[in-house]
């Protein structure tokens, strides 16, 4: 696993990274409460513990790059720049939601930000990402496509087919595997005989590296290197982000498959703690800074909730709207 080089880091940048991770954390914590209040329904998969992956990755992308995500995508969406209010309204199922209430938690879309969703079929997004990258290459763009997926997705046939295709055609795809060690209740080593995902990637001649997914600086650095190569036309790359999900898989998960000790051990090296400790040690931020950012995040979530609460519902008459495009040709 690549060790972070601990590059010199500027206070402002450190604060930006911390701010983004706190925005995600407090959004997710609020979602958890709102689910209890039945404001949010359906499946809800929270990102707590994995914030460094989203934040470290998005920072390395351009607005014109494409992003394909999974059903655990709030963090990706928010740090990509989709307003919390539009995401929260979507979770409420409101007309002002980024998918007009049709998608919910698993289907956050914002084409204006090249955020191509939220996909609820494990590994279902990989071929889509390959296709977006194919279009980028055919159109001679210098943009790339970043594709998030979990360790469980690696067992699916679509992983195999997509990596081969991307590598064979040298497409500009950054595959980001969020290896949080579990696919629902199934530990990686009980689902896949080769647990080193970078080894698998190399079987498609794809450049791959494992990264400490709890260290946002390590993620940033690895993504910067990979993206630079991909833009140069070197073909796809895969980064295995070693991370951990602090909460249950979804709101229905009794977590019989892992014990508290394991969770606590990982929480000790959580992304917020890791970055804050480093920044404080370097004397770049104070506890006050942290408190302020946390408050700002909470306020942003408050107004997102207020926005969602006060937003209208899509008229029932529009149920079948958008099944087919409204303009033809």
């Amino acid at each position, binding site marked *: 696993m690549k060790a972070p080089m601990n590059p010199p880091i500027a206070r402002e940048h450190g604060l930006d990274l911390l701010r983004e991770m706190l925005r995600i954390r407090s959004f997710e914590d609020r979602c958890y409460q709102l689910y209890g209040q039945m404001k949010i*329904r*359906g*499946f809800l998969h929270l990102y707590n513990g994995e914030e460094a992956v989203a934040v470290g990755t998005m920072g390395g992308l351009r607005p014109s790059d494409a992003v394909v995500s999974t059903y655990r995508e709030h963090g990706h969406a928010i740090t990509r720049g989709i307003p919390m209010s539009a995401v929260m309204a979507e979770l409420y*199922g*409101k007309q002002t939601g980024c*998918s007009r*209430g*049709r*998608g*919910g*938690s*698993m*289907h956050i879309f914002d084409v204006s930000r090249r955020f191509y969703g939220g*996909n*609820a*079929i*494990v*590994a*279902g997004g990989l071929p889509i990402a390959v296709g977006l990258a194919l279009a980028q290459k055919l159109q001679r763009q210098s943009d790339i496509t970043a594709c998030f997926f979990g360790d*469980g*997705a690696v*067992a*699916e*046939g679509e992983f195999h087919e997509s990596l081969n295709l991307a590598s064979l055609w040298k497409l500009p795809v950054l595959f980001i595997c969020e290896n949080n060690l579990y*696919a*629902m*209740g*199934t*530990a990686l080593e*009980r*689902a*896949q005989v080769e647990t080193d995902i970078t080894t698998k990637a190399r079987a498609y001649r794809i450049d791959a590296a494992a990264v400490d997914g709890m260290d946002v600086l390590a993620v940033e650095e690895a993504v910067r290197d990979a993206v630079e190569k991909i833009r140069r036309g070197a073909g796809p790359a895969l980064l295995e982000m070693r991370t951990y999900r602090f909460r249950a898989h979804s709101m*229905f*998960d*009794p977590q*019989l*498959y892992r014990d508290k000790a394991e969770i606590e051990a990982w929480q000790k090296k959580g992304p917020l703690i890791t970055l804050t400790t480093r920044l404080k040690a370097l004397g770049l931020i104070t506890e006050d800074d942290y408190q302020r950012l946390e408050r700002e995040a909470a306020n942003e979530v408050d107004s997102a909730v207020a926005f969602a609460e006060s937003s209208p*519902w*899509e008229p*029932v008459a529009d*149920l*079948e709207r958008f*099944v087919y495009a409204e303009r033809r040709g």
Partner: protein
Amino acid sequence: MRSVGDEVGTGMSSSAADLAKAGSPARMAYRDAVREAIRDAMKADPRVFLMGEDVGRYGGSYAVSKGLLEEFGPERIRDAPLSESAFVGAGIGAAIGGSRPIVEIMTVNFSLLALDQIMNNAATLSHMSGGQINVPIVIRLATGAGRQLAAQHSHSLEGWYAHIPGLRILAPSTIDDARFTLAAALACPDPVLLFEHLYLYNMEGELTAGLERVDLDHAAIRRRGRDVTLITYGWSLHKCLAAAEELAKEGIEAEVLDLRTLRPLDDAAIMMSVRRTRRVVIVDEGWRSGSLSAEIATRIVEQAFYDLDAPVARVCTAEAPVPYAKHLEDAALPSPARIISVVRGVVSGNGAH
């Protein structure tokens, strides 16, 4: 067919023990009835095993298999990787090889990834080999919408699967069927798909005293009525029964026919009821166009056209991917209210030609 009763003596009693927790021995939730059916089968036949995603450590994504790993061990309660095509195909191969797999596809939505194995192998091997091979696999799938799971997690494809020759498609919709259909399915040499609507798992009910087996072949009248026949299955059965209660208050007596088996269809039971009531409303949760309701309506026209006093009507799901928002999803799916208004139209409509 193998008699379930013969084999489940111990199963029944130990299940009774279990169920004591859940209240009176005869009362249980659909989820528990399915679990008991699996336990019985595992005990009755060492060839039986359960395989699927998160059926073991996790306890089943709908808690159906909770506790079975502890009872039967990891070899017979097999957690599978996210590889639908491979583990469904492996179930087919294991069935050919003399085992009796119960393969759980977490939900029908993911079965699309295994469809080649189901259509091109499970359904064809017997015929294509000139009868040399049987594929006694049982595939269990959660199906249906209504939980705000949005477009990719709300499919109702059981009627669509019923298009495929070589498969048997069952939809256990009562506690009795949940408790005993599996044994009949395992005893059947053909591939059987059991569709369990996700709304049914929490449903509680009384197990019919003394019942020890059910068959795979017949529809069942769940409510008698003379004015109109509601033909349905799965969770829609319970919507129809609710609608029928309301209609009775208006003096409309609806007969409710639970198809139970979607392939083959029990034409005899359908026509017998239709000939008596002369009016039909078909209720199914599939998208309207090409749903099972179309096949049923067409068979009624082919076999009982001159007995109809009104056009066959159907209540299905709107022709759209199922949306997340509650109010939109409710509007998309069949509801007692929609069933009632369609029935009113069919019954009041002048039947003279």
